[in-house]
């Protein structure tokens, strides 16, 4: 496959930390509009993969192309984010001293230079967009609450809302349902599936019932490289996957 039609193209990416190979010749391709679930045991390199895509970690070897042309390994975090790659962290990270509304306003797609933000005045379109996201994430009644006072699940949702506000082409979502109740997990799956049509999404998750609810192509990582790829049923039947991850 040529890299040109892809949204994200990782080829032979390796990262070592003090001799430990966190990523080992990892290759992965995402098409525009695709949603992908990444599973794998602890230490398989899931979070490191997100780190190299978003510029937090520089790979030792390998190619990472965005939209077939932009080399992500040369860019800083902020530039990569502005290309249209959004990221949600494992631990929900919202701006606690700000209100829910302000959190979304900060994330909203808008010029990012200091002097532009100094003179920024919220317009009707931006307001409507924030209202819409508050609706989607069911945070409308809490718009004026400080983000620090939200529950764990609400913070996760606010962070997903912030991702939406960024209007990224690709969303990287790290363990979105960790610590959520079953009902919240179900709602989150719905929420992500609703997003998937317009954006490409990579979800890293341990919760198998959640991955099943998503119903998308699954990539299994182990020891820094791809072990298997396909539907959840297909990879669950793969004997190597059973040995290294699922257990017999």
């Amino acid at each position: 496959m040529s890299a040109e039609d892809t949204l994200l193209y990782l080829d032979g990416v390796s990262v070592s930390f003090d001799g430990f190979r966190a990523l080992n010749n990892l290759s992965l391709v995402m098409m525009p509009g695709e949603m992908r679930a990444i599973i794998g045991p602890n230490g398989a390199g899931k979070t490191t993969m997100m780190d190299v895509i978003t510029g937090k970690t520089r790979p030792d070897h390998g190619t990472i192309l965005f939209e077939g042309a932009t080399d992500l390994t040369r860019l800083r975090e902020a530039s990569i984010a502005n290309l249209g790659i959004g990221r949600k962290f494992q631990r929900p990270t919202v701006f606690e001293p700000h209100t829910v509304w302000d959190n979304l306003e900060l994330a909203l797609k808008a010029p990012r230079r200091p002097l532009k933000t100094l003179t920024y005045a919220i317009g009707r379109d931006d307001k409507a967009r924030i209202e819409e996201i508050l609706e989607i994430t069911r945070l409308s009644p809490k718009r004026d609450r400080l983000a620090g006072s939200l529950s764990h699940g609400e913070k996760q949702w606010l962070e997903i809302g912030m991702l939406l506000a960024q209007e990224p082409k690709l969303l990287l979502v790290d363990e979105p349902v960790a610590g959520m109740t079953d009902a919240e997990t179900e709602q989150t799956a719905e929420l992500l599936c609703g997003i998937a049509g317009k954006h490409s999404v990579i979800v890293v998750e341990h919760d198998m019932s959640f991955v099943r609810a998503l119903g998308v192509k699954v990539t299994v990582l182990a020891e820094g490289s791809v072990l298997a790829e396909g539907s959840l049923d297909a990879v669950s039947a793969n004997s190597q996957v059973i040995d290294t991850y699922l257990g017999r």
Partner: protein
Amino acid sequence: MLTRFFLMGLDRKAGVVLTILALLAVLVPVMTLLVPADSPFHMSVFTVSLLGKYLCFALLALALDLVWGYVGILSLGHAAFFALGGYAMGMYLMRQIGPRGVYGNPVLPDFMVFLNWTELPWYWLGFDQFWFAALMVLAVPGALAFAFGWFAFRSRVTGVYLSIITQALTFALLLAFFRNDMGFGGNNGLTDFKEILGADIQAPGTRVGLFVATVVALALSYMIASGIIASKLGKVLVAVRDTEGRVRFLGYDTESYKLFAWTLSACMAGVAGALYVPQVGIINPSEFAPASSIEAVIWVAVGGRGTLAGAILGAVLVNFGKSYFTGALPELWLFALGGLFVAVTLFLPKGLLGLGAQLAAKLPGNRAGNKSVPGGKTADQKGM
């Protein structure tokens, strides 16, 4: 647009601060110049200059609070920018002495004649013009802060390491300015000023004028700072303070945000120093001493970090205490200052301005009070 910017920062707290400053700007001149000297309401010129000095320190504290309270940059070298602004003003005042110096040289300041220098060093050129000196008051601290911040922030030096190099910066400047061949008067600094903008610097009218100028500078800086805090840029700054990593992944180039606040803060500190020098009549290298910068940090901590108004309050109160102590019990002052810092850190983490909110939170049935203090809980959290 500019009006909107200033209006944005005008909350109730700003109203109180600006009203007090406006009252000072009216009452002090009246009490000094119009009220007869035998009236109990008369204010001496000495007191005016003392108040002016406190307000210069308040402006330095305000500048420090902007970067420490809102961006999380604990500068232990802010007095360096203050002193550089002071030296720029001092150079102008030296050039105004003209042939009235002890050696009567029309161009060279006394200390240069004393060192057998025959011509003015190039970096003293232009300082006979007030507008040029005023520009340098902003440009020199601003340029130094910009260069320093550019390298420090790009290299992602943060937290205590950044604090240590700001301390090293001011110490390096202290040593440099002590040298006679730097051309800034060495150990003695610049003093013996005669006039400013053609007015006798000792005259009561000039003293009152300098005081009013300080009040105006403080009020303007307060409005600029609170306008910034209320803007989206201010929200980004607070977000950078608490979780810088997250802000980067939203696509904000956090280094340029820090650089903006840092440079602006240095310019404010420079203005504070420039207003300080004519009121105290001297600038010497001791202003660069690391202790001066640390004292400024204590003012902000006492008043309440991240409140702007608290910085002003803290600077005035602590310096009032200092004036009293160094008169009454000089050997105890440093102990009192140290004790104050320890007490504030232990019992008043949000300073005097946070005291009200802290008490409200303690009342039974008012647990929500905790949450109504913006920036309280997360202020100490380390970024990612």
